[in-house]
């Protein structure tokens, strides 16, 4: 996994493949897209199930509300666009016609995070976790690689709730395998000290999980034992796993490619402040917009690289003492 030649696949590709698997299992699964079938990978579904595909045009508000109407007739609609536009532009349609109406529409937002790269800040959704997790009934998933994304889509299709699935554009190292467990609502430990007790717990979500694992490996080599949890479901939060990690380590670092305000780290902090207060450090974007650049440049610029994660671990350790 830490090899330089580790296989790298865009997370959104897992969406395309997962949707085909979900559609084969359930004939009510339909796909709706807003003029982005290629880059959201919905074309895989469109090619296989042309009569269950609907092209909405560049109209994300309509995308959400039409899907709600289809769900009212028994369909399980997957809607996809860039996260900035869905659930960004169409947030109120999602709230009223999907969440308030309690319709099982699945919203896949691709191109989340600054790692969208050269397109620049307008296209980099770094507020989407905040605006979806605040919505009653919405399940929020943030897979760490293409394989987990595929599992998340298949699992989402089987639920009766609205689901938001956050997808990244850039090629991301494959961390999981077909055998890695995935259950909505369950956090999984992805890295634990070879021996002894971890002194810091890292909670990571999405593509940055790989960086968190790299940081953990380096820290272990340097004599700092940490544990890393993959929080693929941001809502409902696996509170038990978060408490357990906090009680065991006494200090937490959260890692996400999203604004710190309102994101996954906020969700973890809300839980810990109530039940197991320990020092927390947050890796994420600090109240700024993104910009053009390569994904690697942007991750470094906004303080979400391996060195930043290691520094946050050192800092939280000091606060612990």
């Amino acid at each position: 996994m830490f090899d330089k030649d580790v296989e790298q696949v865009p997370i959104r590709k897992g969406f395309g493949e997962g949707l085909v698997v979900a559609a084969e299992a359930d004939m009510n699964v339909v796909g709706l897209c807003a003029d982005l079938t290629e880059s959201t990978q919905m074309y895989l579904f469109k090619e296989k199930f042309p009569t269950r595909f609907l092209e909405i045009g560049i109209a994300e508000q309509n995308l959400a509300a039409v899907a709600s109407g289809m769900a009212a007739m028994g369909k399980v609609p997957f809607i996809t666009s860039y996260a900035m536009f869905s659930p960004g532009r169409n947030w109120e349609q999602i709230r009223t016609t999907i969440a308030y109406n309690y319709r099982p529409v699945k919203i896949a937002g691709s191109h989340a995070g600054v790692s969208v790269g050269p397109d620049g800040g307008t296209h980099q959704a770094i507020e989407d976790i905040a605006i979806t997790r605040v919505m009653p009934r919405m399940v929020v998933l943030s897979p760490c690689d293409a394989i987990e994304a595929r599992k998340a889509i298949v699992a989402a299709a089987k639920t009766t709730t609205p689901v938001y699935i956050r997808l990244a554009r850039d090629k991301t190292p494959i961390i999981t395998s077909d055998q890695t467990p995935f259950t909505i609502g369950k956090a999984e430990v992805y890295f634990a000290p070879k021996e002894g007790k971890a002194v810091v717990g890292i909670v990571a979500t999405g593509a940055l999980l790989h960086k968190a694992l790299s940081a953990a490996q380096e820290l272990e080599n340097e004599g700092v034992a940490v544990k890393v949890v993959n929080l693929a479901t941001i809502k409902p939060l696996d509170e038990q796993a978060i408490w357990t990690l906090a009680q065991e380590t006494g200090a937490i670092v959260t890692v996400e490619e999203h604004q710190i305000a309102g994101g996954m780290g906020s969700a973890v902090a809300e839980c810990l402040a109530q039940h197991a207060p320990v020092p927390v450090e947050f890796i994420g974007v600090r109240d700024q917009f993104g910009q053009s650049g390569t994904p690697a440049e942007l991750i470094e610029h906004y303080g979400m690289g391996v060195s930043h994660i290691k520094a946050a671990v050192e800092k939280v350790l000091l606060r612990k003492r």
Partner: protein
Amino acid sequence: MSLTDAKVRELETKAHDIRVSIIEMLIEAKSGHTAGPLDMADIFTYLYFSGAMKYDSKRPDWLERDRLVLSNGHIAPVLYATMAHAGYFPMDKLATLRKFGSILQGHPHREWLPALETSSGPLGCGLSQAVGMAIADRMDHGAVSSKQIFCLLGDGELDEGNNWEAIMLAGKERLHNLTVVVDRNCIQIDGFTEDIMPLEPLGDKWRAFGWHVQECDGHNFLDIDRAFGEARAIFDKPSVILARTIASKGIPAFERKFEWHGKPPTTPEEIATAREALHM
């Protein structure tokens, strides 16, 4: 076949009773909208009591029913009153409008009243849902489906861009199983529609998007029946009926006044005026 004279008289009586219920509800609730509910009472009466819409109030989840999507949810009193008269729930529930724990939320919420097809209130997204229903039904049953999807829109609501996205999609998809009624009462909260944001030439706009367009007198059952009959007969495109209505129809002192869009009769004089006009 057009409506018989006896049927027209029966519908007129029912529409009057529904207007009485609306005013009773609003007086009791002390908040809510007056103009739209009163002016849509005839259209609602037609849909629920002429046989135009397929439903079973004792089996609201009957799969073969037609669907009615109310987009401008603020005219909920006319929907609730009509549904009570149609037997969906007891009439005495109407007095609970807008009260804590009521099945009759200030704007329709299907969680409280599951017989509703959709929750609504935020304007401009009802038609999209109706379009989604029409497309899903066609996916399942092809062109032979006997279901009709009805969607009721306010005219001021057409300021919302989301509507035009839905209008464009319905035109593209040639949804003959979709019939929209626009409540063309020419008012919205802040004033007359043509002053706030001109809609005319409204029929031409819909026509340009691929719709079959008709106008009708929204208070004349024979004309309403003619328009719905023609809409049902159109098989290559969606239909819109621009129903010319008189805001607050039935209470002459309130009629055509945009000030009555979003308030109920509250002062003793206003209440007396409303009751007198409706012979309550």
